[in-house]
């Protein structure tokens, strides 16, 4: 554990803020620059930075591989599900206005939040999975 001490201490300090920033970009994408795609990339970067400093095995104890692989498909499923729910509610595919029976604007806002979340989950999962794939090869 003593090797790369400075890197490890700095990474430990940074990772919480990277993940918090990812959540901010995810949730604030409606009001400022950003959105699901950027948030997913930043979220994945947080875990990748941690892997670089502490090794992939250590990271997998926090973020199990089953979770990563589930995230890859979960985001797309969430996105498409929102589309089917809007069809079920009587609208067109991905016509979020019908999600709120009282105010179409609220429905739109809710739909955008949900599909951005789907984008974020998938992107974070895919990028983490790609990095873990490389990391595993490195250990051989």
């Amino acid at each position, binding site marked *: 554990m003593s090797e790369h001490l400075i890197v490890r201490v700095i990474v430990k300090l940074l990772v919480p803020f990277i993940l918090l920033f990812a959540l901010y970009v995810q949730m604030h994408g409606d009001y400022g*620059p950003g959105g699901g795609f950027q948030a997913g990339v930043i979220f994945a970067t947080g875990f*990748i930075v941690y892997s670089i400093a502490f090794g992939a095995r250590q990271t997998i104890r926090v973020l199990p591989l089953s979770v990563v692989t589930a995230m890859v498909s979960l985001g797309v499923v969430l996105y498409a599900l929102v589309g089917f729910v809007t069809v079920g509610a009587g609208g067109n595919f991905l016509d979020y206005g019908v999600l709120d029976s009282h105010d179409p604007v609220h429905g739109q806002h809710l739909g955008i939040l949900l599909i951005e979340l789907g984008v974020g989950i998938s992107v974070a999962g895919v990028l983490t999975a790609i990095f873990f794939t490389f990391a595993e090869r490195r250990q051989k």
Partner: protein
Amino acid sequence: MEKLHVVILLMLMISLALTVVRLRSLLAIAILSGVYSLILAVAFTLLDAVDVAFTEAAVGAGITLTLMLAALSLTTRSSTKGSGSAAQRSVAIVVCLMTGAALAYASLEMPAVGDFAAPIHGHVANRYIAEGPLMTGVPNIVTDILASYRGYDTLGEVTVIFTAGIAVMALLWRWRSDGK
């Protein structure tokens, strides 16, 4: 003044690109590509395209560089001397220069940056800008267009990312189910 800044940034990017061509160290090439993306992100910011700039900084300078470094750790650190005979290389140079010249020629026909009469501003863009934030309750017009008006396209994009991810995993994934 802003124009001058963009020109300086573009000159920096051209010199970076030329440096990358000359280099043999793959590590340095990967890092300079990241620097290139970061400068491009600054240029996008100057052009008021903050969402694109954000993506370029996060993807181009951040994650691509990290994945490149991860890939580099599996191969060698420097490339061998360029292969191919002198004739092959001169053909390659001619093809590159001609493609570049054709693109530069085509760019002369493009409307100026911010030109109100440009064809792209004549169709739905005005409606999106006028109605988008009111229709969706989301003030960021880029998010309006990507997530709501162009929801199908974004679903397609996420599917592309998903497909790329499972393709890499199908080809290279070797983790056992217990994480060993």
